[in-house]
């Protein structure tokens, strides 16, 4: 079992910094997802680990071994590219066999290994075909097979499902989870899709402009975002945010000003800040209480400005004074644009962020 550890890793392209001082631990035998918006340095990070790019500074350790100066081959990692990068002139069999041939394995052994992996990925009837004769999903499997034949210490995936349609994506997600459990190998998986991250990851590392914004188990990050970036990146529809001030404290909870003279009582970790400190209040759409569900006290009157019916759910956009909120109601909820509705923000579900965007 091999873990991957990055320490103060840096990489720039000319003047453009891509990775700016990243500390990261991908636990052994687990699936770690690197999540972040496009351009935040995910691919660069993966290529640094694979040895396809050279770090400007910092350490890369695989299984405790410093690998900065080792070639990709010596690092014993396998990378699956976003574009698959199959060898177009080789059959599927030869694509899978190439790495084994390079390592000097005997023909009979190569044959057996390729067939074993092909069977595992259900591509054993495609071995004689060329990449261009395969569907996107099949090419994707071949790309994974090419990584698997070598039995590497670590798998690196760069947005492997981004070229597939939604149904196939869901199917491949399940398959990757199954493979990961079966192989028990350390995997690092890059994606910008939060659904993929939440469903696949044992451990999520959320990146923001070349830095780690937060790392941890997916639900921890979802429920306890460490800063505004994480709070607003995770969740669809996104967390509601409202810039306001602290009004005081009661029983270890701070009182936060809401429109219409209402208050939210929020528990925080650190020392309570001074009165009138500016803060950002955050609450997820699914945590708002609407209509009859709202209690009597500290309830706001809101106007329904938009209703989006998705079938299973209804997204309701609300305006109450200077605060805009998105709430989630039942698919069949009897709500229409122009309605006036009561809203409550349960304090236990609220998040507070200081002026620098850090969670309080």
């Amino acid at each position, binding site marked *: 079992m091999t873990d991957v550890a990055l320490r103060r890793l840096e990489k720039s392209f000319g003047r453009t910094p891509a990775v700016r001082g990243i500390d990261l631990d991908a636990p052994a035998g687990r699936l770690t997802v690197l999540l972040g918006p496009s351009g935040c340095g995910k691919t660069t990070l993966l290529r640094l680990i*694979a*040895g396809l790019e050279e770090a400007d500074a910092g350490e890369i350790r695989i299984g405790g071994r410093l690998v900065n100066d080792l070639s990709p081959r010596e690092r014993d990692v396998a990378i699956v590219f976003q574009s698959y990068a*199959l060898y*177009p002139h080789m059959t599927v069999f030869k694509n899978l066999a190439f790495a084994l041939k390079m390592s000097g394995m005997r023909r009979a052994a190569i044959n057996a290994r390729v067939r074993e992996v092909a069977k595992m990925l259900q591509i054993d009837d495609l071995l004689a075909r060329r990449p261009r004769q395969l569907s996107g999903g099949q090419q994707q499997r071949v790309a994974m097979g090419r990584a698997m034949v070598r039995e590497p210490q670590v798998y690196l995936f760069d947005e492997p499902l981004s070229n597939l349609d939604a149904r196939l994506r869901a199917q491949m997600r399940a398959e990757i989870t199954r493979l990961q459990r079966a192989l028990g190998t350390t995997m690092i998986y890059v994606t910008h899709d939060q659904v993929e991250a939440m469903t696949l990851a044992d451990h999520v590392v959320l990146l923001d402009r070349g830095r780690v914004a937060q790392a941890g188990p997916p639900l921890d990050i979802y429920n306890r975002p460490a800063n505004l970036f994480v709070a607003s990146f995770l969740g669809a529809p996104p967390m509601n945010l409202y810039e306001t001030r602290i009004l005081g404290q009661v029983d270890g909870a701070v009182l936060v000003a809401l429109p219409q003279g209402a208050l939210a009582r929020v528990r925080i970790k650190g020392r309570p800040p001074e009165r009138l400190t500016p803060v950002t209040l955050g609450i997820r759409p699914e945590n708002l209480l609407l209509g009859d569900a709202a209690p009597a006290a500290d309830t706001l009157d809101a106007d329904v400005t938009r209703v989006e019916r998705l079938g299973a759910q209804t997204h309701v956009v609300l305006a109450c004074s200077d605060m805009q909120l998105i709430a989630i109601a039942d698919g069949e909820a009897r709500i229409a644009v122009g309605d006036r509705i009561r809203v409550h923000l349960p304090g236990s579900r609220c998040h507070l962020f200081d002026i620098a965007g850090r969670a309080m």
Partner: protein
Amino acid sequence: MKTAVKKAVWRIAFALLIAAIAVFALAPVYWAVVTSLETGSDLFTVDYLPRGPVWSNYVAVFERQAFGRNILNSVLVAGGTVALSMAVALIAAYALSRIEFRGRLLLLFTVLSVSMFPQVAILSGLFELIATLGLYNSLPGLGLSYMIFTLPFMVWVLVAFMRELPREIEEAAIADGAGPWTIVTRIFLPLMMPAMATSGLLAFIIAWNEFLFALTFTLTNEARTVPVAIALITGASPYELPWGRIMAASVIVTAPVVLLALLFQRRIVAGLTAGAVRG
């Protein structure tokens, strides 16, 4: 009804245009073939079909001089030039398109500028060089001088083509444990076959047809290539130009080029539309 007529007229006009181009391009070749099959005074009458074709010119080409030797020389020189150019250009293209180093662009343009001087301008200098290397009146000497034309354009064609290949394919090979040599021979070479075939054929035609260097850098018939040999075909007397034999020789040397072009036809089309082809 009206559009159908219009369409037909256009089609006929187009067919006529094609026919005109074909006649213009093929008439000299046809005339050469006809002439090569005639002898004596028939040569000087205008015939659209040879009168009772005779093969004596073709026999004479080989009997009256060592034309077989000349053909062999041409094959060796052109073949050698193509093979060597391909090997060198492939490796050079890999370095120039895939490896970052100082002065890469400068080098690329230097390579191009080599081919820009007119042949006569470098003739005397090249003569000195070839004489110094002891390659005067030899086939390697000719091959070396031809690479001045063939290498620059081959390098450029291959560099342009190689840039089009996705970088990730190469990186996948690196991750699979392949070294530079394996990548060039096992990954790039097969993917670049269309470009290799196109530029290789062009190089072959250049080397096959070249006249000035072949005339200047050879002295005896043992080292002469076909174009020079044809130019030096003489009749029985200084006043006789043996048109029949000259045309027969011309037809003989045109054949391999046509044959090669037909053979590689599909690859050439693929090479000309390169860039549209994706891995």
